[in-house]
């Protein structure tokens, strides 16, 4: 397998380079990642050393398009692959955002089906040199210039992914073309269960975190505001939910960073253990600000309540 000169074609690469130490090199990547504890034979990794464009992805991932590159770490012995990618994702409000990831360390999938990597998120605090485990990428053995696999990110998935190997001269001056969205079946049964009695009633939050503002004095208010931001899970310290009416409407009250927020969920729907709804601000007739996506059954509902650019990870249990 030829060694590609490491020319980082991905946008925002300066932030990536700064954060994980990726540097230009004549051969291979120089990330600074240590030797993996588990060794994968070089010949099993070599077929994956390429540049890729994302051609298809599960629609639930919210990814529009993406590029990816795998290279052997320069000077590693035994050799190991490191991947970097840039995904263009849909924010909860529908805007396009960029997400940078590195993939490390490699591991063999059972029965020699391919390779798996931990997905390390670079981005939110890239300028501060932080990468955080955010999911997993599995790639099946390439077939011609196609590679299939699956992706888990942000606690969601797995979503199917398909990549095409890029030729050495293939470059995208702007964002790569939109990947085909692989649509999954969406719940369409009304309510959050077969019988209203299964899900109507008063719920209590079971995954409340300690309120970070309590011991913060004058800084408490700004911490409260900040903790309610971001797309990776605002901190929820307390909350409750009431589900009632026909059609059923859920009123969700959350305390995040010392601030109380009220959301109204309409168009509740279910399929198997999936539970979805629309999220409104200011009551059921207020503007739709996002959606709820999660699982439920037997008196429990948990998942992501998305409002604008904030994601609240909630778990509720029906009170006895």
């Amino acid at each position: 397998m030829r060694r590609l000169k490491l020319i980082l074609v991905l946008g925002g690469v300066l932030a990536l380079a700064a954060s994980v130490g990726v540097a230009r090199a004549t051969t291979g990547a120089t990330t600074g990642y240590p030797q993996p504890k588990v060794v994968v034979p070089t010949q099993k990794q070599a077929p994956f050393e390429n540049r890729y464009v994302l051609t298809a992805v599960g629609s639930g991932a919210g990814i529009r398009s993406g590029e990816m590159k795998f290279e052997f770490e320069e000077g590693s012995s035994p050799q190991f692959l490191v991947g970097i990618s840039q995904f263009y994702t849909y924010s909860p409000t529908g805007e396009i955002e960029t997400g940078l990831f590195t993939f490390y360390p490699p591991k063999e999938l059972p029965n020699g089906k391919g390779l798996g990597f931990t997905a390390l998120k670079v981005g939110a605090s890239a300028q501060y040199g932080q990468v955080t485990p955010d999911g997993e990428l599995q790639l099946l053995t390439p077939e011609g210039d196609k590679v299939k696999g699956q992706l888990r990110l942000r606690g969601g998935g797995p979503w199917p992914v398909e990549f095409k190997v890029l030729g050495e001269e293939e470059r995208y001056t702007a964002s790569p073309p939109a990947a085909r969205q692989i649509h999954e079946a969406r719940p369409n049964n009304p309510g959050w269960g077969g019988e209203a009695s299964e899900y109507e009633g008063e719920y209590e939050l079971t995954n409340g975190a300690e309120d970070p503002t309590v011991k913060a004095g004058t800084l408490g208010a700004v911490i409260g505001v900040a903790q309610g931001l971001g797309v990776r899970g605002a901190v929820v310290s307390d909350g409750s939910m009431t589900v009632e009416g026909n059609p059923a409407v859920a009123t969700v009250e959350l305390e995040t960073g010392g601030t109380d927020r009220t959301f109204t969920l309409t168009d509740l729907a279910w399929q198997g253990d999936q539970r979805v709804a629309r999220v409104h601000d200011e009551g059921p007739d207020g503007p739709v600000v996002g959606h709820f996506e999660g699982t439920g059954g037997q008196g429990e509902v948990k998942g992501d309540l998305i409002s604008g650019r904030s994601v609240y990870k909630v778990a509720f249990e029906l009170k006895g």
Partner: protein
Amino acid sequence: MDRKFRTVASLIALAALGLLAIAGCGGSSSSTGGGGGDFVSGAEAACTSANEQIAALGTPQQEQVTGYLEKTEAVIEKLHKEVAALDGSGTAEAAYTEGLAKAIPVLTAMTNAARSENFDAVRELSAGLVEIHLGELAEAAKLKTCAEVPVSES
């Protein structure tokens, strides 16, 4: 006679200096009180003003977060200057003043992240403010108002 007078005068002067030194040390002998009551009253007044200004900012919408952080940063910077000027030399007072100093660069980083609409980073960086435990430091320094969380007016 003249020599004896000078000796007595010197002893009196030394004694006076010693008394002054003891009096000076007395004010900072406690673990919490450099200026003692002066520090507490001065810091509490500064915190009252700061808390009122922060509470008046309300709870911002997403698009208002940058402005909110800029104003909060300015309030905390001013609070730090005012508290530092009180020159509290006790351990707890110094720790509270140091806590305010530590908060400023974190707030600056949060504001910068908000300017680039990197709200995940704003949230992640706020962990740096949580770690300061400024309210606990205020309590240790006997600063009741400084230990309170400003309550938003909206």
